[in-house]
Each structure stands twice: as C-alpha cells, then as structure tokens.
C-alpha cells in the first residue's frame, strides 16, 4: 500500500514544487482579451492589428489618427508641407521624454525609420517607407552589399550588372564589418531624404507628392525607438556585416518608449501589462493608470471571462454563436426603439443612450457591438490565360468574370449565411471610410444580365442543358478555393456554388484547404475563384487599389490592365488632392464594374464586447485605430 501511495505523494510534491509562486498584481484599470499573444513589440517589425494597437500604448508617432479618422498632432506639435507636396517638415514638441527620462529627438525618429528601411531588419511594412526619397534605392544598395559580402564570388557578376563599380566592390569586400556599417550609415545620409536638422525638426523628402504621408507618419511602424537601447542590442554578423539585434530588448525592464504607457510585464501567451508613463508629455489627459491584455485563445472562454468581469473589452468576438448575440442586441434595440430614436435626435452617443436604458431582460443584450472595419470581404478571380494545370482559363475573359459577379446575391449572403448583417459592398474600398473618396457602386445582383454576359462570352446553353463554347467544349467545373478553419468561408463558398449553379447553369464545386496550403495555392495562381479579404493600412484608397497593379506582390489574381495601372500612375504624381481622388475613383470603376478581378461581397465588421457607458474612449470610425491613451472605465 505504501509503495502505491508513494508515487502519488511524489506527484503531489512535484506539483507543489512546479506550480510557480506567482507575482499577482492588482487588476488593471482596463483589461482586454487577445486571442493570441502579441507577436512583437518592435514597432518597425509590426504587422498585426493587435501589435499595432499595443504600439499606441508604448510609443507615440509624430501624428495621430483622431477618433473621427482625421489626422492630428502627437509627438510633433506642427508641420509644414511644401507646395509641391514632396517635403514635410515636422516640429517636435518641446521637452518630449522617453519612459526613462531621456529626451526624444528628431534623431530617434530618423534612427527608427532607418531600421524600417534597412533590409537587415526585414520589416514587413518597409514598403510604406519606400516613397521617401532614395529609400528604395538604398534598400537595393544595402541588399546588394549584404549579398556581396556574404558571397564574394558574386563580385564580377554584380560589377557587370552595374550594382557596384569595380573600385567600390573591392573596397566593400576589403573592409571589416565596422567600416562596412559606417559606409552604410553614410550612404543612408547621402541617399535617403530623412534629415534631423536639429533635436526638434525632422525633414522628410518624398519621391512624389504623397498626400497621405501624414497618415503614414501616424502609423505604428513609424514610431521612434530609444537609440541607446537599440545600439546596446546591436551586433554585426561576422563577414557579412549584417546588423543583428538581440531580440530581448522588447522585454519589460529593457524596452524604453515614448508613449502614454510603459511595458511592465509581458509573459508569453499569458498577459502583457502597461502602466502609466509619467514622463509622457500629455499624461495629465490619460485617464487610466494601467492596461492589461490577457491571452485567451478559446473564443467561448473569452466571453465567459467577460461575463465574469475578468475582462472589460473583447476586441474581436469570434464565438460560433456571435450571430445569435447580434440578434439579442437587435431584440434589445427593437424593444427600446422609440427611446433610442428620440435620444439620437438630441445628438447623444449610442453607448450613452444604451447605458441609460433599463437592463436587458433574458434573450436580449446590449454589450455586443458590431462596428464596420476598414476591410473588404471578397473573392479572387484568376485572370491568367491559362490555369495552373495548363488548361485554358474561362475567367481570363472579363465577361465571364462579370457574369459570376452579377449573379451573387450579397444581401442573402449577409442575412442568411454570415448572419452578421454586414454592409454589402460593390466596391473594394469600403464606402465612407476615406474622406473625399466616393467609391463606385459596383455591379448589382442581376442574374439576367449575368447570363447575357456569359452568352456574349460564347458560353451558350446547349440543347443538353450544358454551357458550351463554339468548339462544343463544356464549361469547366468552377472550383471555389477557401481556407478551412473558420466556417465563414465554407458557408460563403457553398452559397456561391449554389447561386452560380442555379443562375448560370455552370458546374461548380468547393475546395477547402488548410490555411497554409490555401495560401500556397493562391500565391501560385492555382485556383479559379478563391476567398479573399483585405484590411487597409492607411487612410488612402491606394491601400486597397494598389493590390491590383500588374506588378504588386499581393496581386495573386494575375490581373493586368494597362489602363488601370496608368490611372494609378497618374494619381501617384497628381498634386491636386481633388483631381487625384477622381483619378482613383475612375480606376476603381475599371476594377469593380468592368474587369472584376475581385468580387467584393461586403465590408467586414468587427464585433466588440463591452458594457456600454462603462468602457469609454473607443472610436467607431472604420479605421478602428484604438488609442489606449483614451480608454477609461467609468465606475
């Protein structure tokens, strides 16, 4: 008996040993839930939405996106833009400090932006910096230099290509890593239009007039970093001279930022805590002392944590029953319709109105909020002449693409398939998301016209009920590629399959693949129609429209229309904002009314969960640029 008890006792002892004594801290003022941990707190390397949101807590960019979507001053108190729109002069506030008390200077911004441009950093969003004068040429120069130093045998080839002069190539190969690093920094100063004139003045020269550059300057990847911290973390790789940074610098105790909060705890896949940075210039206007993001991967558990009061905000409700939660919210609003309408008349904000109403009864709720996001749900159409298997691609003909676009009943999709009642969209750029831009209406649901388009393309209904071309070949089976994992895309694909079978009489099947396989097929052009989706990055239509340029890295559709490319080119150099928007609108008409390389379905919504009136400071502008400096809990 003792011998049997003993293993049990040993186990119990081990658990006692292993359960770590935890440093519990009091609950933060605002607790939000992340479905997965932050990927990085290195601002230049960020690309995920929740990382960029966290950057707002610990860093501050030159400009900021206001709750209404407009751009306002932040670390810079003012700026001037040259008449031709290619030079921006930023004036930093006086007395800006990092969380350790060091001053924030224009040089810190330059250092950070240089990191983003350097190929050594390999920043996902380095492309946003490439409109700065000389940035792209510098990126290429540095990439060539690294390649040459990694493999000196490339010398002759690179000299022949004109990458380096023979003298430069030999000098680059002869010097040590430190000299190579110095050469790189000097080259950057000479080539790239980012100059720190003095501690408080940053001058940026652009390749072309960029009317949205202020918007970029407000983007998280343009945050400054604390130079001494980064320099201490930097080493140069032997031989190649590649800049290596010890990734530990983003951990609490080491990370130094200039934002309203500082990082005080980060436990992997567990939680991340930010506390007030008393050195922040505007700390008097930051209502919360602490913010905590806890990681709960399971969407149902996240909702339970909210219901139990362990979290104040779920920024992304993903539970399977979320459509039912929306229905409960609608039921609540329906019961109080007259009171809500009357209060809206007086100009009150919806959260405030909801908070003033009686508590929801069973079957109702008011803590779920569906907000339009800055993104469009769409399907890709392969525009290449040939499919990946070598067969002729019927969708290379824009008439066939228009036919399938015209036979999508989007209203039915959002009401009965996704059940989230998103705003249907005929355009790629979400309507109302960018001031001054009016996206086209796109194609309506018109099955009659759709069938006519297919007939015109030569796919006529034969006597056996099959659509055939002039050679008598039947229309190939349309396969809709989607990623498994979330039911949304399977449901949408099934509904599209039925619509196209029914309205056009073409054979159609669905093909689900795991996420990474789906992506590989998409990138290799191995599909006919595939699910898509895109969120914009900055407040300009090109954040969507660039995707369909012939040579864009995200143009998985193989779409190419010189007229479209030309309009974007012309818009890129057009200094007049008004005329520029008209050119972009014209381009989008080609995209969504003529060529249809993408089939827009609806504007994405994000489902927030919070108690209205209790958590304040969240914006509902489609950019959804939530700034922790504004969040507050009202008792």
């Amino acid at each position, binding site marked *: 008996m003792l011998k049997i008890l003993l293993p049990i006792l040993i186990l119990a002892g081990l658990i006692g040993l292993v359960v770590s004594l935890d440093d519990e801290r009091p609950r933060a003022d605002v607790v939000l839930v992340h479905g997965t941990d932050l990927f990085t707190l290195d601002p230049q390397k960020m690309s995920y939405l929740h990382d960029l949101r966290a950057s707002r807590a610990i860093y501050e960019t030159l400009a900021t996106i206001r709750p209404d979507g407009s751009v306002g001053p932040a670390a810079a108190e003012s700026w001037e833009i040259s008449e031709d729109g290619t030079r921006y002069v930023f004036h930093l506030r006086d007395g800006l400090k990092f969380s350790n008390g060091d001053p924030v200077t224009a040089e810190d911004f330059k250092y950070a932006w240089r990191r983003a441009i350097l190929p050594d950093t390999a920043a996902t969003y380095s492309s946003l910096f490439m409109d700065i004068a000389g940035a792209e040429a510098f990126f290429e120069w540095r990439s060539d230099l690294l390649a040459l130093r990694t493999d000196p045998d490339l010398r002759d080839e690179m000299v022949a290509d004109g990458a380096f002069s023979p003298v430069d190539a030999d000098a680059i190969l002869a010097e040590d890593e430190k000299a190579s690093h110095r050469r790189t920094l000097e080259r950057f100063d000479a080539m790239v239009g980012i100059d720190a004139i003095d501690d408080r003045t940053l001058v940026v020269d652009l390749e072309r007039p960029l009317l949205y550059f202020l918007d970029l300057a407000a983007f998280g990847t343009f945050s400054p970093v604390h130079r001494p911290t980064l320099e201490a973390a930097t080493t140069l790789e032997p031989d190649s001279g590649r800049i290596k940074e010890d990734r530990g610098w983003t951990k609490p105790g080491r990370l130094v930022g200039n934002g309203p909060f500082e990082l005080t705890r980060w436990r992997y896949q567990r939680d991340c805590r930010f506390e007030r940075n008393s050195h922040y210039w505007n700390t008097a206007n930051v209502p919360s002392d602490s913010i905590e993001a806890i990681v709960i991967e*399971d969407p149902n558990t996240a909702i339970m944590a909210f219901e139990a009061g362990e979290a104040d905000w779920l920024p992304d409700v993903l539970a399977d029953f979320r459509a039912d939660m929306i229905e409960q919210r609608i039921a609540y609003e329906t019961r109080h319709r007259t009171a809500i309408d009357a209060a809206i008349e007086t100009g009150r904000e919806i959260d405030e109105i909801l908070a003033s109403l009686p508590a929801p009864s069973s079957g109702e709720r008011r803590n779920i909020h569906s907000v339009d996001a800055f993104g469009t749900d769409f399907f890709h159409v392969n525009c290449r002449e040939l499919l990946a298997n070598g067969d002729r691609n019927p969708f290379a003909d824009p008439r066939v693409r228009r036919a399938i676009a015209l036979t999508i009943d989007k209203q039915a999709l959002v009401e009965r398939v996704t059940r989230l009642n998103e705003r249907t969209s005929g355009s790629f750029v979400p309507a109302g998301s960018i001031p001054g831009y009016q996206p086209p209406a796109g194609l309506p649901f018109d099955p009659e016209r759709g069938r006519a388009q297919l007939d015109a393309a030569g796919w006529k209904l034969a006597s056996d009920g099959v659509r055939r071309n002039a050679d008598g070949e039947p229309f190939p089976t349309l396969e809709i590629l989607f990623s498994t994992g979330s039911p949304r895309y399977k449901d949408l694909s099934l509904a599209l399959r039925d619509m196209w079978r029914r309205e056009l009489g073409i054979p159609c099947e669905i093909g689900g693949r795991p996420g990474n396989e789906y*992506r590989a097929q998409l990138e290799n052009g191995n599909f006919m129609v595939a699910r898509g989706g895109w969120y914009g990055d900055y407040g300009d239509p090109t954040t969507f429209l660039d995707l369909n340029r012939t040579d864009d890295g995200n143009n998985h559709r193989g779409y190419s229309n010189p007229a479209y490319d030309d309009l974007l080119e012309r818009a890129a150099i057009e200094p007049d904002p008004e005329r520029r928007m008209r050119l972009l609108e014209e381009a989008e008409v080609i995209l969504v009314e003529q060529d249809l390389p993408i089939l827009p379905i609806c504007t994405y919504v994000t489902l927030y969960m919070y108690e209205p009136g209790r958590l304040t400071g969240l914006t509902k502008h489609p950019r959804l640029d939530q700034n922790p400096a504004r969040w507050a809990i009202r008792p």
Partner: protein
Amino acid sequence: MLGLIARRLIQLPVIIFVVYTVTFVLAWLVPGNPLESPDGRRPDQAVVDAMLAQYKLDDPVAFYFDYLGKATGISYVFGDAPYPFDLGPSLSHSDWTVNEILAAGLPASISLGLAAILIALVLGLLAGVIGGLKPNTPLDAGTQVLAVVGISLPTFVIGAILLILFAVKLRLFPIGGWGDLQHLVLPAFALSLPFAAYIARLTRFGMIDEMRKDYIRTARAKGLPEHRVALGHALRNAFLPVLSYLGPATAIAMTGSFVVEKVFAVPGIGRNFVDAVMAKDITLIMGVVLVYSTLLVLFNLIVDVLYSWIDPRISL
C-alpha cells in the same frame, strides 16, 4: 538495473536524433512561409528574401546542421553559440527565443499534467477497487458507466461544462488563466477524466483477477481483515498494469493537453505546438518536439525503474 538505466541513456541521443531528422524534414515540407502574417499580408519579394537570409531559411541543409549544433550544445563547446541548448529564435513570435517560450510554458504544462495524473490515480484507483471488490453490483455498474463517460466525452465539452458550472454559475474558480492552485483545479480535473476512466478499468480487471488467486485465499485463511487482503495484497499486484500505463499517460498528460490549455487559457506548451505547426514556425516545432521526445523517453525509463521496485520479481 544500473545497466538498464545506462543503456537507455545511451539510446536517448540516438532516438532524439532520429526524431529531430524526421521532424525537420516534415516541417520543412509543410507548405507556407513562416514569415508571413496569416491575414495574407505579403511583404515585397525583396523583403521576403531579406527575411529568409536573416534566419538562414534559404538553405535547408545549412539550417539543419546549424540548428543541430546549437540545440545539442556542440556549437557552444566550440564557442560558436552564446549558450548551450540554444533552440533558436521563434520565427512567428520574433521577440522570443524558443528557449524562453519553453521555459514560460513548461512549468504550466508539467504541473497541469502531473496534477491531472494525480487526480486520475486517486479517482481511478478508488473506482477500480470498488468495482473490482464488488463486481456486477449496482455500485460496480455505476462506476463503469462513469468510466465510459469519462473516456468518451471530449475534453472541450467537459471543459466548457466545468467552466459554466463552477466558474460562471457558482463562481468557485476563476474562468481561466494561470497563477495559483485555484487556476489548476478545473483544467486538471478536465484533463484527468479520460485517464481516470482508463485506470479505473485497469484496476477493476486487475482486482477481479487477483482476488481469485490462491495467495488471497491464504491471506484470508491467516485471518487478515478483508481490507488488508484487498489493499495490501491484491491491489499491489493489480496496480502493476496501472503503473506501466502511467509512464506514457504522464507524458501524454503533460504534452498532449492542448485542448484543455486552450479552453482554460493555460499558458502551456501544447497550444504553442499546434500554433507553431499552423504557422510553420520551424524552430518552435523542432524545440517542442525535442523536449517532448526527451520527456517521453525519460518517463518510460522512470516507470520501468519503479516497476522493479514495486514488484521485486521483475529484475531489470
């Protein structure tokens, strides 16, 4: 016995090496790009190339040997690595090294797994002994039914039920997370049920079998009280199959608990593994697999040693 331990410890590196190689090939063949965000953001090809060069992902053979050297500590011995057993940076969570990720997750996974096995042992032995001593009675049938339920109900269902009942309605335990023993109770219980059910069945059959044997009759004839006959003699032998099950079970409980970790938001290793495979985070996959396989081999060894200690008839 020392010979066995020595033999196993010599086998260990060979097993780990084979596991390393097979996992590496499989992980490398998975389609996808570990450096790409899942929402389809694709940096320019020049940046992708720069990323691949940064992590030495452009050459699988070089990567294989470089990683092997660092993970085994050979590079450290030759002064090419800052510390031994360097499992590299995580590719998808670029601020963390795999060593940091494992160090953060292992304590949670290990204590959760051990706690689950502990609960399973107590519940399973109790139910098994009751059923085994009074076979084919309503009491036995009851425990049997419970055992079937324990094996067949998926953990995510049990987890959700436990959460709704004990955390949301009764507020006895926190919803999820980690930190103290309170956080451990519900996930450990949810994780223990399938193991408990299996142990109960093993014990029951063992007890029924043992109680018919001659030495039990002898023990009774000596006038020993029934509870000493059952617990002191029969259980000791009936426990042996349970013990041999315990080795792999403990390893599974400690490593295969990703569903429970997900439902109860336990910051363990299991879900990292699943996420790593989805993201093709090769270094993290390799790191987790190496640690898991080492644990598995060690636990089997521990059980074999315990075996001969409990039953002196077995010599190793």
